[in-house]
């Protein structure tokens, strides 16, 4: 830090440095036009009643928020969102970590295996949904075949039509598509861990598990935390995959907040209520992110002391 300060000082002297502002300005403008202004418009909309083609837009204050707080399906969406977020974070980041540890091993065909293991990342959402809908079709899906090899069941499971299976299934599919990214990021960190650390651990007589616990883990924990934040954000925003696969059903068991926003606005034409749910969801996810950021900072501080 001190060295860097010295460099910057030598470069720009004591006068105020405008370069970062000039660099950031186009981006701030850009995000303002495309995201911030629309979001403020939505915020305003959440204080109005706006039933398209039925009545004119009118100011209703907090009525939408009032309705939302007593709407059991809003709370259902909140729960589903948290389960979905938690599920994908654990499964995708977990699978990513395992995949990274595997890809970091030296074995024959490693690069081919790496290419195959990370392939789902390149797969767009729509084809992903198409494949899995077909694989899990309760009547013809090949997964019925596999499950009946393993489990002694008479009837095909109902898969995405089953109230208890739908959410786990959606989590698995989202994780299938997302884990390669986390795996690649983790791999990049694993490869930056100096091998001397492992050698030192070996000299101290550490087992492989111990060297993972005391060498690898401390090095990758900050990354895992960051990816946790990212995975939460991505899971929160996940739309096409869920919407196309289950439409939020059956019986709202996969209706995340984003799906609820979309349905309120575009299926029920209640734009202001959609905006209200969206705002609430945004605040919730923002809080979660800040919590993560706080935990990360504290953990960093601990590591530093």
């Amino acid at each position, binding site marked *: 830090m001190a060295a860097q300060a010295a460099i910057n000082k030598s470069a720009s002297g004591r006068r105020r440095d405008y370069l970062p502002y000039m660099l950031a300005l186009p981006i701030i403008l850009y995000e303002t036009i495309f995201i911030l202004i629309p979001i403020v418009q939505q915020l305003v909309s959440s204080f109005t009643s706006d*039933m*398209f*083609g*039925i009545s004119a837009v009118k100011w209703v204050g907090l009525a939408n928020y009032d309705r939302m707080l007593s709407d059991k399906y809003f709370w259902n969406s909140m729960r589903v969102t948290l389960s979905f977020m938690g599920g994908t974070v654990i499964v995708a980041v977990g699978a990513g970590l395992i995949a990274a540890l595997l890809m970091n091993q030296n074995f024959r065909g490693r690069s081919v295996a790496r290419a195959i293991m990370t392939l789902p990342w390149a797969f767009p959402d729509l084809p992903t949904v198409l494949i899995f*809908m077909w694989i*899990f*079709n*309760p*009547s*013809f*899906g090949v997964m019925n075949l596999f499950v009946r090899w393993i489990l002694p069941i008479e009837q095909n499971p*109902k*898969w*995405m*039509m*089953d*109230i208890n299976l*739908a959410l786990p299934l959606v989590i698995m599919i989202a994780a299938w598509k997302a884990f390669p990214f986390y795996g690649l990021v983790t791999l990049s960190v694993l490869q930056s861990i100096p091998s001397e650390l492992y050698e030192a651990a070996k000299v101290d007589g550490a087992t492989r598990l111990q060297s993972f616990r005391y060498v690898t883990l401390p090095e990758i924990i900050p990354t895992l935390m960051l990816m946790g934040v990212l995975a939460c954000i991505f899971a929160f925003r996940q739309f096409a995959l869920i*919407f*196309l*696969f*289950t*439409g*939020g*059903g*059956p*019986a*709202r068991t996969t209706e995340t907040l984003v799906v609820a926003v979309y*349905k309120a606005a*575009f*299926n*029920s*034409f*209640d*734009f202001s209520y959609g905006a209200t749910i969206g705002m609430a969801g945004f605040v919730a996810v923002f809080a979660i992110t800040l919590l993560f950021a706080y935990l990360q900072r504290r953990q960093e501080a601990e590591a530093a002391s």
Partner: protein
Amino acid sequence: MTKPTDTKKTNKALNRRDFLKMGAAATVGAASVAMPKIHFPVFLRQSKMELNMLTWFWTEPGRGDAWRAMIQKFHEAQSDIHINEAGYGENDYFQQILIQAKSGRIDGDLFTETPDGFLRLMNAGHTVSLEDVVSKAGVTLSKAQDMLRKDGEVNGLDIVTVRFGLVYNKAMFEKAGVTEPTDLDNWLEIATSLTDRPNQFGMYSPHLASEPFSLWFMLQQWAVLYDGIWADGKKPLLNSDAVINGIKLYKAMYDNAMPQGTDVGTANSMFGASKIAQNMVVSAAVNIWKTGAEDPEVYGNLRSAAPFWPGGKGITRIHPICVNANTEPEKQAAAKEFLSWLYQKENYQQLLEGCLDVIPAIEGGIRPEYRETLTWADGYDATTAITVPEVLGDFVLFNDELGQVVTPHIEEILAGAKSVEDAMGEAQAEAEALAERVFA
């Protein structure tokens, strides 16, 4: 699978530059008509009026080609107006039109709508009166089109009326030695006897949570099978006997005769491959099997069941075409010009035949010679029409909202998580809350 060849497709091959031109022309179009002497750059000096027609028909089997053929004919008949294809696939169309309308203006000169979507857009002032078109075309509108009127003036012209009914594969019935059902219990028996999982299924009706619109759309007819309706005025009837019985039958069919978990597209392929014996579809859907079926015999074997249910009614949905109230007056005039041409009896008949439709919007709109060729249409014709406003009461303006209330409970029922009575009792309470909110 080949689509019917329609002779020349010269207009279809619009290249990118044409579209840039079109966009530019749209901006200055009005001005150039008002002041023809102004010197525009060469590529803008176009005397043709370019109209965009928004519809989901372009991607609909059979119907898209029929419309292209009509527009081709219109282009050959005159040289002042040129009609361009615009719009979205059926899944997205209604949402997209809504986003556009919501932002102030529908981005097209002509647009088509569903009956319920139309009512909303008409209320919001996106349509214009088409009385002058009707008088210029010199036709008499059917009584059913009264629902398209605002202050007595018709704001949309029906270009396809569909009716709900039961289509079956005659060959499969004959092979199994069964005949048309005589009553609802008998129907369930027949459907069950035709089912031999996983190779053959006796019945299909949409049931996937990922297709809530199709589910709700078709489900409405199941209550009508017990001569019921879903709402009376502002009062929802979701736990009335007819609705409950209809859903029980639907659930029994689902359990005993349907390919569970199959989407509409795949089910239609399976019907076309003679793997499904009966399908609850609207009359317009037969287009799917005319040319596209895996089993080429299927179309010839299609029959619609004569009404065997109490009341014998079938939901009838009118889809109008409208002129955008928020487009330039010159374009409105040109759009009306096109509609007047289209609604002339001969042209209307040609369109109806191209689309394989069976319910005409105007008197004498269907030629008897053509009607005789439709072997599958008798059951549909014998069914008594019941319109969407009759089935949904005042909820016709909130069709999708009501659907949002009903479908999650249907999913509970299909999954066996709740009894029909419990689930529909909850749905009724939610629908009453909805009514309180929207009819306030």
